[in-house]
């Protein structure tokens, strides 16, 4: 690990200003992803700004009947929160499907949104990776791609967003609240928060340098059966090959987003009207234009079948 200086700012605005003014500075919250990457020298910050202890760790009801989730609320606490369990089951289920108990105790809501891909070529510093080292190429394109993106990728990158929570946030139409170095707040719809790789895969999100996530807002609850189905190589503590976050009625109508298939949680709202017709009618539209490799084409069939299982669960 490269050496770094460290500070604990007194407020979110001070934290944002500290990262904006210090070269190669990063926020640290739970640190479960960042420190892992620092040990491998994939991340080499010169300065860490610790945002624990800024009071961003509460879950509050909003006037609109939704929830305001502080950026530093731990995954364990969010999944166990009574309102989340009652009204946002898809979010609780997605959180509990991710990582291990130890990691969920540390990992935060904002950090979870910002976690980086687990593409093996991003992690292997001997390989070309445009996300890790812009302009170096992408070894994944002709490499081992079984876990990688089937849609929304580019000639520069076929990495996936690895998270579960963000897929649930996408189907819930969450918004991300931030503060910048000048102290100005803004909100970003979750659909516009993560980017597709395009020709700039090193940028995972549309956050500006020094912009700090302060909260994630959930609109008022959506009725229906809340489902998160995750298909992975082992029963626990593994990343999704494909996941489905869905809120469905008895007739199959509702909303659905997919994880493990793209550089961001993947949702095509226009296809949702066909949910009562069954999974195939929906996934044909959701994955129109998919460009799978020979190793990951199975994900298209798996996505259809996983949605089919979710529809059966909702209808039961």
């Amino acid at each position, binding site marked *: 690990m490269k050496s770094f200086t460290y500070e604990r700012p007194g407020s979110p605005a001070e934290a944002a200003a500290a990262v904006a003014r210090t070269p190669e500075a990063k926020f640290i919250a739970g640190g479960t992803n960042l420190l892992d990457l620092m040990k491998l020298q994939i991340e080499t910050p*010169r300065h860490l700004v610790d945002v624990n202890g800024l009071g961003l760790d509460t879950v509050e009801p909003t006037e609109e009947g939704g929830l305001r989730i502080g950026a530093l609320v731990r995954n364990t606490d969010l999944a166990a929160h009574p309102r989340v369990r009652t009204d946002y089951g898809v979010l609780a289920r997605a959180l509990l499907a991710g990582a291990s108990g130890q990691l969920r105790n540390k990992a935060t809501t904002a950090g979870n949104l910002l976690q980086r891909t687990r593409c093996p070529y991003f992690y292997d510093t001997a390989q070309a990776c445009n996300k890790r080292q812009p302009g170096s190429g992408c070894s994944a394109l002709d490499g081992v791609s079984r876990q990688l993106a089937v849609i929304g990728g580019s000639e520069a990158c076929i990495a996936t967003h690895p998270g579960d929570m963000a897929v649930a946030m996408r189907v819930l139409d969450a918004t991300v609240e931030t503060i910048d170095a000048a102290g100005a707040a803004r909100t970003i719809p979750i659909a516009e928060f993560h980017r597709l790789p395009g020709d700039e895969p090193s940028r995972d999100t549309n956050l500006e340098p020094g912009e700090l996530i302060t909260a994630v807002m959930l609109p008022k609850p959506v009725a229906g059966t809340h489902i998160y189905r995750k298909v992975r190589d082992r029963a626990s503590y593994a990343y999704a090959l494909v996941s489905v976050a869905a809120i469905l009625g008895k007739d199959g109508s509702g909303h659905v987003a997919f994880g493990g298939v793209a550089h961001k949680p993947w949702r095509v709202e226009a296809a949702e009207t066909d949910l009562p017709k069954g999974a195939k009618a929906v996934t044909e539209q959701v994955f129109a234009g998919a460009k799978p490799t020979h190793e990951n084409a199975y994900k298209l069939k798996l996505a259809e079948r996983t949605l089919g299982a979710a529809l059966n669960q909702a209808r039961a």
Partner: protein
Amino acid sequence: MVGATATAAPTRTDEPVLATVTFTVNGQRRELELDTRTSLLDAAREHLHLTGSKKGCDHGQCGACTMIVDGRRINACLTLAIMHQGAEITTIEGLGQPDHLHPMQAAFVKHDGYQCGYCTPGQICSGVAVLEEIKAGIPSHVTADLEATPQVTEAEIRERMSGNICRCGAYSNIVEAMTEVAGARA
């Protein structure tokens, strides 16, 4: 504030940067001056000579480093010691000692919950915290009803312990040890 230079830019010399942290480890107040890079695990093992907690993968994948910090189990390898100012930290040495074993340690001995023993301190710290998590009503991936109170079942224990890997494969005996401790306490 944008563009302001209130803090001089640190130069990349790769010289160690030192910082001081004070926390309580197994009931004892400890103050350490550490390289900022020091993980909580290395602080315990290399600086406090508490070598019960083990370094397996050093990447949060195996759970051998599990400690209980402010009442919660965490991977001590994936957190910086300097981020724990004022924290209450319990390692395997603080749970119990050979002459006064913690009930979970005694149950691991009784049920042969290990073979080589390398993962065991992490398994035991995790096991103690898992039973507390179930008692506190925290649901898991296998909890059928999110609004019901989770119970101590084999499925719950196996799911919640998935962050602790045992290469010897002592899992079924670990489940038996944890089940006995949960039952004895109920």
